[in-house]
């Protein structure tokens, strides 16, 4: 990993079209501005990771699991209506 030290207001360029600006440094928090082409996706890593892991787990779903779930849905919604 490349490690650089930057001061508040300074920037880092990645390739020709990505610029990261360190806008504000306060205690343990850093406010970062990112300029990148529209087709580059930018996410907070931990949020991205949660969604990705959830996709991984969901991709292994079997047809049997869904039939069971469908049946469960029918049952639980019909008991709701009866009340």
């Amino acid at each position, binding site marked *: 990993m490349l490690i650089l030290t930057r001061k508040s207001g300074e920037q880092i360029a990645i390739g020709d079209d990505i610029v990261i600006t360190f806008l504000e440094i306060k205690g343990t928090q850093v406010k970062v501005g990112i300029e990148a082409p*529209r087709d580059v996706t930018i996410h*907070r890593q931990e949020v991205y990771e949660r969604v990705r892991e959830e*996709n991984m787990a969901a991709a292994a*779903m079997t*047809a049997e*699991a869904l039939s069971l*779930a469908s*049946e469960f849905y029918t049952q*639980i919604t019909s008991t709701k209506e009866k009340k």
Partner: protein
Amino acid sequence: MKIQTTRFGQIILNDKQVIDMPHGMLGFSEHRRYVIIQNKKDSPFFWYQSLDDPDLAFVITRPYLFKPDYNPQIKEGLAHMAWHMDDTQFFKSLEIYVVVNIPRGAPGDMTGNFMGPLVVNPLCQQAVQVVLSEGGYSHKTRLFVQDKEKIQKIEKEVAV
């Protein structure tokens, strides 16, 4: 066109049904083409079947059925799509789904990924999975919030 799937065998579909995901689903960026297949008539669940991998399919559902007040701020997450987001009519035309996870043997505990909604633009048949960092939505949102006893009772009934 005919495609091969692991779960449903061969399926025949119209080219117009194919949904293109320029960025793929998170973790599956190499798979770009999908089709939405309803699980069965009147079911709120659909399969989101990959056309590039017969084995890859997600279960998806309409989030509003379970959380009518779901209000994801997706605009920022659509910025990298080449969509003409010119008016409110456009946002109304979008279809929103969430990916569902069903724990083995416990359908009552199934969750939806409300943090990463799947947004389909029917005008151009493109879709994107948006990652929400604001709004406080969980990637493991319970779909059924009825009391435990009732859930367990119905789980037992359907398991037979």
